[in-house]
């Protein structure tokens, strides 16, 4: 069967993405990178830690799952009867892994010369769940240690506490891995229910990056996927969100961990937006971060000389159609001073004129940086996955950069309201 392949070309990066949707609904993206030795294959589902409440595709009934189940499922999918997929890949000299985020889970492999083999193994990995009472129990010990590792990580704590202060009902408040208590409730039936629902082709995508032949790749995927498609349903999943108020839950969360260098995150809760607008906010935030918070900013120089910051100040936008916020974070032994200064500074930025020279110079910097970053194969798949999840246009980030105006920056800064801001400190 001939597939209809859409070609998306970007002139700035001299890069091409091929896109097709298979008859079962599976989206396939291939970014060809001539001359590169490594090939990356990713198989993902639009299912992450926040999708706890949904209609089970097999029973048609609404279910609510324990926290951490998407991540648990990610771990367990590697386990097969009498063997472990991580081990199988590794024995072929192919490296593989997976990650779970708030709204998606991705399994991937990287190879130099075993692309076909790796791709077939990846599809098999995702398509053949094998959950048993024993292997679920075993994983509780391993994930328990993963949770403990994150519990000891100051960076992780300061970030999650900022989310917990901002969000009232939204499941983004919950650790991706769940808690030792919540994962103890997971059993094999729960895993199958989640798997059958979210790992259906209609909810999934494959992304390939590297020097590969497009037609051959699509054929391999199509042939292999078909092998596993008896008795499975492929349809849109009914997910239930929560209604999240625009106000914050609490102004401040402080945690004592006995660390030397306190960390601080300031969050500003925003009203979610969608599609290309999400990308636009990311690009604007990136410019703001560089112009006003980077080491070359006047603000940084002042704070540094005061001894109020000891490392970078990051200003990062995070958002989907479902949540939206800014997180400003840094390390400081003088958290009282830096938090007050950041709040005042943001208010001042709203009221002051934007320096046109600084703005143009920063844009110029970003144009160069985008080209340098595009060399990295990871950059290609990140852009594709972002576009799948946000339903945004591919390469919109590059297109919008040249069109951003001073007014856009100003408008965005004005959406940061002090009453919607929170402080998280770990010390």
């Amino acid at each position: 069967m001939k597939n209809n392949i859409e070609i998306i070309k970007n002139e700035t990066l001299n890069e091409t993405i091929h896109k097709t949707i298979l008859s079962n609904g599976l989206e396939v993206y291939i970014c060809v990178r001539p001359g590169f030795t490594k090939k990356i294959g990713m198989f993902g589902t639009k299912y992450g830690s926040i999708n706890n409440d949904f209609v089970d595709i097999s029973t048609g009934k609404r279910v609510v799952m324990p926290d951490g189940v998407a991540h648990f499922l990610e771990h367990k999918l590697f386990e097969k009867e009498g063997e472990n997929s991580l081990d199988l890949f590794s024995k072929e000299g192919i490296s593989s892994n997976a990650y779970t985020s708030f709204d998606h889970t991705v399994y991937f492999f990287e190879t130099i010369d075993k692309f076909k083999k790796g791709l077939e193994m990846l599809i098999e990995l995702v398509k053949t769940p094998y959950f048993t009472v024993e292997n679920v129990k075993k994983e509780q010990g391993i994930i328990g240690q993963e949770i403990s590792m994150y519990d000891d990580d100051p960076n992780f704590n300061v970030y999650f506490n900022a989310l917990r202060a901002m969000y009232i009902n939204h499941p983004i408040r919950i650790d991706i891995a769940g808690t030792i208590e919540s994962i103890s409730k997971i059993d094999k039936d729960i895993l199958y229910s989640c798997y059958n629902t979210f790992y259906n082709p209609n909810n999934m995508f494959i992304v390939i990056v590297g020097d590969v032949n497009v037609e051959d790749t699509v054929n391999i995927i199509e042939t292999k996927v078909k092998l596993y498609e008896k008795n499975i349903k492929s349809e849109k999943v009914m997910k239930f969100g929560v209604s999240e108020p625009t106000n914050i839950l609490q102004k401040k969360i402080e945690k004592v961990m006995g660390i030397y260098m306190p960390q601080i995150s300031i969050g500003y809760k925003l009203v979610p937006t969608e599609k290309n607008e999400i990308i636009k906010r990311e690009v604007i935030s990136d410019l703001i971060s560089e112009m006003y918070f980077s080491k070359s900013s006047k603000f940084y120089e002042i704070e540094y000389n005061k001894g109020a910051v000891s490392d970078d100040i990051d200003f990062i936008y995070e958002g989907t159609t479902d949540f939206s916020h800014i997180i400003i974070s840094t390390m400081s032994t003088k958290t009282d001073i830096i938090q007050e200064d950041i709040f005042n500074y943001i208010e001042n930025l709203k009221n002051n004129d934007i320096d046109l020279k600084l703005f143009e110079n920063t844009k110029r910097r970003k144009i160069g940086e985008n080209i340098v970053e595009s060399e990295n194969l990871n950059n290609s798949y990140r852009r594709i996955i972002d576009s799948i999840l946000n339903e945004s246009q591919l390469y919109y980030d590059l297109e919008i950069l040249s069109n951003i105006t001073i007014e856009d920056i100003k408008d965005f800064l004005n959406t940061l309201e002090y009453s919607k801001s929170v402080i998280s400190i770990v010390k």
Partner: protein
Amino acid sequence: MKNIYKVNDNKFKSIYVSYNFTFETKKDEIPKNVITSLILSKGCNKYKTSKEIEEYLSSLYGTNFDINMEKIGDLYNIEFRLECVNKEFLPNKEDVLKPAIDFLYEILYNPKIENNQFDIVTFEREKSFILDKINKRKDEKLKYAVLKTEEILCEKEPFGTYIYGNIKDAEDVKLEDIANTYIKLIEKSSISIVVSGNLNGYDDIDQYIENVFKNKLEKVILSKELINISYKNRNVNEEIKEIKEKTQTNQAVITLGMRVENLEDDDFYALNIYNSILGGTPSSKLFQNVREKESLAYTAKSRYYRFKGIFVIYAGIEEINYEKAKTVILKQIEEMTNCDISESELNSSKESLISDLLEWNDSKISLAKLAYTNAISEKNLTIDELIDNMKKVQLEDVARVAKKVKVELIYLLGGEDSEK
């Protein structure tokens, strides 16, 4: 010119310039060198402040400039790095590489010195920055446990010092030390420069660099002698030390420090395979047993330090499982020593190491690193040669090096929280 190395590949769009000062150091001299190079990177006569530097770099389409420190065994390397776009990919084909190289010259050889002294304010700032860095290394438990293992294992060697040095030595650095350290750094170090990436349209870049830096590049010490110091500096302990350290944490970390006796140049390939089989991949003995079989840990890995001939094994565990984890880990090492290794373990380790080597081709920074390593060790190994040598390793080669690996240290970073 002898110490300028070029790596050209047109699949890249940008260019990486790495200017290295490699030198022999004593433990207490590390902070002086670190602070000196930080001061250099923060301003010179032409670009007076960080802000001026960054503004200039922005105008060069976001040319990236930073410094990186690394211990190469007992040697110390300070790398000043630039990353910029090849003119072909920029509007109006504007060249930013040559201005970036001129900029680097200003930073390195035209620093802000008045009356034989660097600026006191910058000095104080960078000194306190480094003190913070040293102090906060304890905040990340797993990394800290590994660092601590390196430190205890190589207590008497320069390598066994944190990358930014010890607290006390850093506290003792005075402004007066900086001017001398600077002179020593630029005059007594072995200098090597690597330019890698898309060098299309820059055939003469080595000539250009030579014209800019001129005699600064001349004083190159033969580094072969320097690099061999790492091998000579070893002291193998017969007894196994067991050390426990308390800290506020949920998870405990167990580590083992191991050293290779009578390390030889050619052992490099077999030792890498040894590491891969023991704890380098998900099919390794540590991953399969400590994690998959016994469910004791999420992280269970080993790392080989090629310029030092040591290994560090680390796993994040529950403290009550310390004895059990220790037994399981020691058993994996014993299997290695007894060469209880299957052909399939050997082959998959080779495959994964070969893939890693091939992947260097995709990164201009990895390619630059290879060129630098070749330069300081006066070798000229290509990726293909490395792969060929890796392929040649047989089970008996792994068995031979395995017998030379001795456990010297078992360390536990334990939790106060976990005792409750």
